[in-house]
């Protein structure tokens, strides 16, 4: 193959690779958003579903199902259910009217006949009819699942209760606040210390020891966050419990301390790099005007590096907001509005990681929605700070 053909081929190769990158990166947004939006736009099922246990045959409005083991879907517009079924040698019938105008899901069904069955409602949007007479586990049961209507975004974002299992209430305000509080606390704790440290390293520590310290700090920036969580659970949590004499040291304060420590190296090393990047000529100009080194550091180096400092803070915030496992280990994870800094808190990320394995149905989709909220929060935060930075830069040029 001659070199001109290779040249052209390579051009297409790099384009292809970039295409793959766009698709891969775009797919994330698409899929997560797609799943996350679902609970708010569609009901969990088109109509009522029946699930049976220990029933050999069942006839619903004239259609016969034998040995059903999967859902029996009733058409959406059906308002009357005439059910006949047999099992364990007996035949029974059941008539139900659906009052779709009723808003309380527990009152939506009116049972006209249900024989000797017992009606219970083990969880919202579910009725269970149990026909006793046989040993437990072999009782005949019919579960009637009502479709859950699309969830209100406002109840999701503004709701104070997160009771996904039985009540099917999905309010994430406590988690949003939990995320904000832990990150804010970590930033307030970590950033000033990190900036002071970085400025000192960049301006006052001779190159050799500074390089050594910098190496150490970079190392710490790379340590897996689980290690910090581990340290938190071993040392910080018991210490908090001891010092404040509370039932449990798991809570906001421990989370803030651990996150604060975790962002220290990140913010320090980025800020230090940007302090060092401030041109020598600005520093010289200040010194040549009779300013002291300290004055130069605070009045010239710090303001001139603000764009880099902001980048460092953004990364710090991203790390704090996005941190999952370390927080789970120390925060206590109760989805409550906290009243004291020692209370147990739960963050958005913790909710996802804790419950993803246990969630099903809408609960699982809701965790994707939590992911979308997290994404939007980060996006807003980053764009706000980037906007600020751009304005600063514009002012400067």
């Amino acid at each position, binding site marked *: 193959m001659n070199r001109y053909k290779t040249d052209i081929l390579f051009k297409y190769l790099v384009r292809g690779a970039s295409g793959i990158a766009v698709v891969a990166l775009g797919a994330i947004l698409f899929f997560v958003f797609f799943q996350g939006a679902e609970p708010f736009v569609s009901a969990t099922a088109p109509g009522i579903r029946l699930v049976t246990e220990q029933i050999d045959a069942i006839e619903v409005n004239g259609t016969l199902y034998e040995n059903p083991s999967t859902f029996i879907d009733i058409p959406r517009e059906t308002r009357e259910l005439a059910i006949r079924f047999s099992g364990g040698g007996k035949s029974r019938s059941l008539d139900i009217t659906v009052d779709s105008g009723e808003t309380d899901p527990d009152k939506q069904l009116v049972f006209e006949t249900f024989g000797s069955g017992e009606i219970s409602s083990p969880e919202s949007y579910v009725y269970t009819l149990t026909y006793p007479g046989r040993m437990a586990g072999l009782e005949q049961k019919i579960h009637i699942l009502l479709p859950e209507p699309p969830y209100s975004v406002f109840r999701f974002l503004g709701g104070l209760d997160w009771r996904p299992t039985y009540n099917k209430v999905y309010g994430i305000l406590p988690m949003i606040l939990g995320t904000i509080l832990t990150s804010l606390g970590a930033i307030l704790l970590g950033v000033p210390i990190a900036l002071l440290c970085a400025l000192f390293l960049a301006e006052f520590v001779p190159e050799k020891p500074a390089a050594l310290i910098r*190496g150490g700090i970079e190392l710490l920036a790379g340590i897996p966050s689980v290690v910090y969580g581990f340290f938190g659970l*071993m040392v910080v949590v018991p210490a908090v419990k001891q010092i404040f004499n509370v039932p449990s040291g798991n809570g906001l304060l421990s989370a803030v301390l651990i996150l604060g420590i975790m962002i220290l190296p990140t913010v320090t090393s980025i800020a230090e790099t940007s302090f060092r990047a401030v041109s020598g000529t600005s520093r010289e100009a200040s010194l040549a005007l009779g300013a002291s080194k300290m004055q130069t550091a605070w009045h010239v180096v710090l303001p001139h590096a603000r764009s880099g400092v902001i980048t460092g803070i953004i990364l710090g915030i991203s790390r704090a907001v996005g941190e999952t496992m370390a927080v789970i280990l120390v925060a206590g994870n109760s989805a409550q509005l906290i009243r004291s800094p020692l209370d147990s808190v739960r963050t958005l990320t913790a909710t996802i990681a804790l419950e993803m394995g246990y969630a099903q149905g809408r609960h699982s989709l809701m965790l994707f929605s939590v992911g979308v909220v997290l994404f939007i929060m980060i996006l807003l935060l980053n764009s706000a700070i980037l906007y600020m930075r751009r304005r600063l830069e514009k002012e400067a040029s």
Partner: protein
Amino acid sequence: MIKPKNIIPKDRKNQRLTDRVLWWIMAGAVALVIGVLGFILAYIAGQALGHLNLGFLLGSASQGGILPMAVTTVYVVAASLILALPVGILTAVFLTEYAGDSRGVRILRLAIETLAGIPSILYGLFGLLVFCRILGFGQSIIAGACTLSIMILPVIIRTTEEAIKTIPDSFREGSLSLGATKFQTIRHVVLPSALPGIVTSAILAMGRVVGESAPVLLTVGIAKNMPRSIFDSGRTLTIQLYYLTKEAINPEDFGIAFATAAVLIILVVIINTATRIISSNFRKKLGGGL
């Protein structure tokens, strides 16, 4: 006419005092940072010392060892790099050497910018949905590797781009002015010079994968067995540490947890040192060329 001499205060005592106080505050901050971080390292190292032995390194999970986890970690790291590096490097080459300012390029840059900053657990959600469920890989090393490779793509693209950007245009111009094609220029002049930077980016990405936990938990799983293939699920070292931490009860468990933490830290030290050596060589080499 103003005489600055007469109006500018001459007394510098206050200034010197402020300078000194600030100096001590800042030195205190440094001491605090070094102290806290040093304490963490020392504490973990101290507690881990008695447990870092061959039995621990080469034992199975039920023997209190970490071999299966180490192997899983290696699989995950290797597979994610194999998937991500070619795409990442070629994309970086595209962005630095070919891309103009078309709409597509702007979308690509936006995607990279945005995705570099989002929490890793979102990658986990995505991987769980797409690779584990839709594509049917289940929780497995391959699902995790696919997920993590997308997660490190922005890292690789950005760092490689940086590395390529440090190659002065004069090298490219030199090559082009000798009648070389663009591909020849990239292949023989740009990439060799950028290689250490690219290796650095790979190592950085590797560090990120080694240290990652939430998306790994969601996509690779937590099975403690020695994986037989990349289609098995497994448990990486970070997840092992997470579980050990969560579930440690007796001193033995703590010891193992500390030792696992120490192994992770040692890995990071190795990765950092490698990055450092390579990038400083890189700088030296380029320094000579400039």
